[in-house]
């Protein structure tokens, strides 16, 4: 991959608080231009600290990062980044429009951009109201509008659907998907697997400050396998292990997980029936992103 294709590149990025707390531990993150990258991890895994380091709000203890080719926090880098980190932080006594006006002035973008982003997040009707009167969902949408004010090349969104009702969440997902088109890069941190599954091109899973898994959602979920329930089960397991189409057979939850191309399901069924084995279930199966996430983020704890 060409270096210029990378919008975010961290090298052994580390943040320690004192001697004992390691929030981010040698993180090597690569986010490519134009992709929607999902950043997953349990609470306290180091997601928000990482995002803050990418924005220059928090200084790394060691390691380095380049965002849009610039040092995090430098005016050159910040010019192309829009961010919503955790809850939207805005002036409660100002209207939505004035809040965006303040940010537009600081960012040096034309005032006309305020109306454009208000329209994009459908807040124009309430733009003159004080932010202190907004619902959580409206504040979240205003936070996204604030992130868009610079028409940024890179959007960093931390839990953008937080506090939204289901309809609002669905709209926001569609919105983020649209934002991810046309060359804009989105780094999306979220706890919601369905959100990430629906929106993201690639996903990185972080645990205890380290990247423990990365790939497309399809890659992370792994190959499809076949789920088989049959009687007698041990005879079925022995037979399946001898079939050339089958790579592996494992007993799981009173059935069998058969590692094989789902296209050979009919042949497997035929072999079992011809051997006098009664097949009650035969279906393709693939690990959900949630299962993969739990496996990646809990394996260390379980091992201990």
């Amino acid at each position, binding site marked *: 991959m060409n270096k210029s294709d990378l919008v975010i590149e961290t090298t052994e990025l580390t943040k320690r608080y004192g001697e004992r707390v390691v929030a981010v531990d040698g993180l090597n993150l690569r986010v490519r231009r134009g992709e929607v990258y999902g950043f997953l991890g349990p609470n306290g895994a180091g997601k928000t600290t990482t995002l*803050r380091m990418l924005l220059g*709000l*928090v200084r790394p203890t060691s390691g380095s990062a380049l965002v849009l080719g610039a040092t995090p926090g430098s005016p050159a880098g910040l010019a192309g980044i829009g961010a919503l980190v955790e809850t939207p932080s*805005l*002036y409660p*006594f*100002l209207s939505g429009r004035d809040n965006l006006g*303040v940010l537009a002035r*600081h960012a040096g973008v034309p005032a006309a951009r305020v109306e454009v982003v208000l329209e994009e997040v459908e807040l124009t009707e309430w733009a003159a109201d004080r932010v202190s009167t907004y619902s959580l969902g409206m504040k979240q949408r205003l936070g996204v509008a*604030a992130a868009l004010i610079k028409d940024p090349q890179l959007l960093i969104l931390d839990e953008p659907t937080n506090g939204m009702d289901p309809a609002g969440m669905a709209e926001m997902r569609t919105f983020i998907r649209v934002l991810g088109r046309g060359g804009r890069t989105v780094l999306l941190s979220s706890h919601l697997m369905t959100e990430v599954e629906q929106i993201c091109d690639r996903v990185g899973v972080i645990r205890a400050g380290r990247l423990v898994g990365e790939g497309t959602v399809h890659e992370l979920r792994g190959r499809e396998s076949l789920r088989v329930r049959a009687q007698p089960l041990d005879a079925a397991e022995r037979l399946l292990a001898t079939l050339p189409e089958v790579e592996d057979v494992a007993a799981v939850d009173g059935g069998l997980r058969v590692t094989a191309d789902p296209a050979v399901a009919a042949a497997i069924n035929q072999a079992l029936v011809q051997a006098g084995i009664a097949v009650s279930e035969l279906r393709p199966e693939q690990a959900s992103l949630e299962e993969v996430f739990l496996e990646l983020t809990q394996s260390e704890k379980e091992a201990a």
Partner: protein
Amino acid sequence: MTTSVAAELLVVRKRSSTWILLGIWSVLAVLFAYVIPYVEYLNGSGPGNRSLEDLLPDRLVGNLLAGFPFFGGVFALMLGVLALGSEYGWGTLKTLFSQRPGRLQVFGAKLIALGLVLVPFVFTAFALGAGASYAIAVREGADVAWPSASLILRALGAGWFLLAVWATFGILLGVASRGTSLAIGVGILYALVIEGLISAFADSVSFLEPLTKFFLRANGYSLVKGLGVSTVDVAGNGPGAFSGPYVGSAQALIVLALYALGFLLVSGFLLRRRDVA
């Protein structure tokens, strides 16, 4: 930078606390400089029996400036604390530092906006004071003679400068404590108690005596003394009473400027270096 200053002016202008502080300060400045002394004059009471001459327009500068080194300073301190400390409470510093300008540019824009906001604090107090002294003169049938324009200009400048020094102290406290409550508490404690207590002990503890010449209050009152503020009035001036030691105007100006510079340098350093949560 111009657009950043415009952004900060919008924030300050739309913030009700700015106007509430301005209103309270203006009313109290006139109350303590004119209304109460005039009532004391009418009743023949007060420190040393008030004379009418002290309340007439030609004493405008001395009368009003006496409230700036301490009383006005506390208001400016609160403005300074609110300018930066509130940003931590709302989390807006994180939002601002994620925009295009660097941290120091945001800080600079906030300083300029705060400096501009202090202008109406000075002008309003002087305008209301002028109105009050004129009304007293007319009511008493006394001659109306105003201080020279140059003296008024110097007084306006000195008033703004004193407020600015205290505001920078507020900024430092707001940044250092990353909030408003502790900063305002410590600031008022310092203004009301610490300088006063050390000054009181300075009479009996010799090594404290030189220290008192570098206090904010000592230098503030020394600066306005040169512009006609009565040391007798200041000595009986309630919680902000000050009876010396006084230093020369030039030293006062330099010491206060160094205070402001020091406060700003430390604040700027902390803002630039520290993580923003």
